[in-house]
Every structure is written in C-alpha cells, then in structure tokens.
C-alpha cells in the first residue's frame, strides 16, 4: 500500500474503526511505520477519539468551555439567560399589574375629582390670630381637602411670606410662599387632605433671613365617619 492508496481508502479512519480486513490492515501498518504523514494522521485520529471519550464522559461542569472560547454573546445578552430572565419578567409583570390595578385607577380618580366642581369644607380663621380665641374646627371626609380663610396682618415690610402647616406634634406638613401683594385681601388656602384628624397650626413668617413670625392660626380638623 502506498500513500496515495492509503489516502484514497481513508485507511486511517478504517483502521481506527476496525474496518480493515486482516491483509489490508497489515499492509497499512507496514505503510504507516514508514510514512510519517500517515502515522501522524493516524495518531491525530486516535487522539481525537481518546479525547472525545474523555469529553463525553466528563460531568457537564468539568467540560465547560472557557469564557474566551464561548461564542461572544455581549454583556447585556447574558442577562437573557433563564436564571435572570424569568425572575425579572415576574417582577415586571407584578409592577405592571400593580400600576394597572391600583396606581392608575387612583390617579384617574384624583384627576377626575380635581376636574369636577365640589363643595369643600372651610374654616374662617379671620378672627383667630390669637391664642385666646376659641379653636375653629371643621369636619371633612377622610381624603378630602379643606379651605382656610386667613388675613395676614399688614404693616410688615417683607417682600413675601411663607406659610407652614404644623401637625399637633409640631411636625411640618408643607410650606407655601405668599407674595406680599396677596395679603392685601383675605387669603383662601386649599389645605390638601391630611392623614389624620387633630389640632393643626398654620404659621406665617416673613421670607427673609430672620424668618420672623407674622401670624399663627390654630384649628381643629375632624374626620366624618
């Protein structure tokens, strides 16, 4: 057997698969002991088979392909693996569900309420800028705003004022800037819905560095059952 015959016969593969008849096998053996190219081809085939057995018999983690040999997926594509994708999808669905079932209906209701005419409870604090006055009160349904009427005393030279609402424990609820020209008339301030009933204090201060108190109004807020 010469080299050309061995190549055409695919003698290496037949030899490794045990497909050569005894006489052809001996002829090929004589040949590959002399032909380095066929010897190398046979050795490569044999090594491939040996390593194939090793790879196929190894546990999955032992034959993991190194990161540098893996097909490039890009960092962001790696997040699409099931281990990440499924929990992320579940969270996304939960957020969408909450928004559609809770947040949006509430927002719609608030917008609808804001766009509709309504009668608001009100308190006139025009004569209550005094610690000695009876405490004015108003009753509102929970979640409903309140209208306050106040007169800020004139005579101060502030360019603007800051009105701050304090809860019964003194915690600030919100602040409102009042331009100086607004205090010429009675101010009507819409108090946003408060979380709980109780005694509230509206403090008006001059909006300068000293924050001098100009007026203080106390009122009682009650909730209607």
């Amino acid at each position, binding site marked *: 057997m010469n080299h050309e015959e061995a190549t055409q016969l*695919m003698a*290496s*593969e*037949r*030899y*490794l*698969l*045990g*497909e050569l008849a*005894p006489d052809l*096998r001996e002829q090929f*053996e*004589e040949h*590959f*002991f*002399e*032909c*380095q*190219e066929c*010897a*190398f*081809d*046979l*050795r*490569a*085939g*044999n*090594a*491939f*088979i*040996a*390593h*194939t*057995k*090793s*790879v*196929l*018999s*190894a546990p999955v983690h032992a*034959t993991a*392909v*190194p990161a540098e*040999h893996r097909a490039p997926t890009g960092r962001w594509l790696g997040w699409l693996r099931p281990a990440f994708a499924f929990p992320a999808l579940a969270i996304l669905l939960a957020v969408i569900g909450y928004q559609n079932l809770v947040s949006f209906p509430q927002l719609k209701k608030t917008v609808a309420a804001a766009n509709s005419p309504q009668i608001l409870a009100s308190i006139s604090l025009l004569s209550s800028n005094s610690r000695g006055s009876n405490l004015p009160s108003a009753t509102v349904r929970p979640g409903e705003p309140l209208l306050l009427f106040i007169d800020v005393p004139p005579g101060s030279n502030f360019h603007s004022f800051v009105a701050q609402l304090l809860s019964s424990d003194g915690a600030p609820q919100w602040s409102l800037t009042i331009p100086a020209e607004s205090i010429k008339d009675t101010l009507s301030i819409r108090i946003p819905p408060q979380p709980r009933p109780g005694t509230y204090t509206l403090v008006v201060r001059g909006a300068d560095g000293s924050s001098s108190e100009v007026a203080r109004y106390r009122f009682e807020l009650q909730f209607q059952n």
Partner: protein
Amino acid sequence: MQFHAFDGPYLERLCSGDFSTEQHFVDYFSELIRLKLRSRVRSPQALEDLRQETFVRVFATLRSPARIRQPERLGAFVNSVCNNVLREHYRASARDTSVEDEDTDNLSDTSGDVLTFLTRKELDEQVHLILEDLSERDRRLLREIFLEERSKDAVCQAFGVDRDYLRVLLHRAKQSFKSLYLKSIGRKVRRTAVDQEG
C-alpha cells in the same frame, strides 16, 4: 507539514546512543506500536511488555555489527521486529484474535506533569468545541460508538446512516483537530529537548 527526517545523521545519532534522538525514536514508534498491538493483545501489561521487547531488540540490532544501513527502512524494521515479538507472544500464550469491537485501551498520555495536564486539557477543550459544532445526532453517534462502544453496525442502523457516513464524520472531526494536535506534539518534542539540555 515538516516531520523529523529519519535520515543518515539521525541513524548515526541513534546508533551512537544520543539521548534526545533515542527519546524521539522511542516516543514516535511507541504510539505506533501501541496502535498496532492493542487490537491483537488484550492485556495492557502484555502490550507494554511486547512494546519494550520490540525496542530492546531494535536497539540491540542498531548497536550490533549487523545494524541496518538504510535509514529510510528504519520504520519498516521496527514493524518487522514488532511482528516477530508478537508471533512469539502468540506461541507462548493463548491466541488473541482481533475482534472488531474488542475493548481498546485508552492510549492517552498518563504522565502527570503540569505541561501534559495542560496539553490534555487544551485538547479536551478543542474536542469539546468540535463536538459542539456537530449536530446533536452526530454527537450521539460518536458517543454510542466511542464511549458506549456499541456495535458500529447496530448504531449506524439505529441512526439510519451507513459506515461511509461514520468514516467521513470521523475524518472531518480529525481534520479539525489536527492543527492543535500538531502543536501539542511539537511542544512535547521541544520539552524533551530542553529537559535533555538541562
């Protein structure tokens, strides 16, 4: 592809006992002898004994006055000595006929140094990539033939392919594997030369 030339100077160095030439000679023909004997000899120990006996006789002849004169016949000479050793083995023990599906030894390198381990790992990874490029059917085909060692005829029939298909599959996979395998052999030869110089 450049191979080591079995020429006059090579034969001279071999006959004079040059260590690196002897190492190369033994490494090169050992694998071919193992490939030849494994389908004929069941016992790994017997295979190794026959391999060593072959080299003992080859070196004895090379260093005798009746040594071979034609370097290009070196390979044929080794094969011939191996055949004689094998015949004597048959006469001395029960005959082992070559059966197509006889268990074959894993002829992978069993030496334990770091370079060998890394080379083996590298070759495993290369084979893994080659297998990944195959279809699932072809991977299963190779698994059943080489790992589970089922009858090749039965497996081909089960997969609806013929022996030609299997042969071509092996051929293509081997071709993909060859370049890295050649590098690993080159690394081993250089390592042997460095060790010898050291």
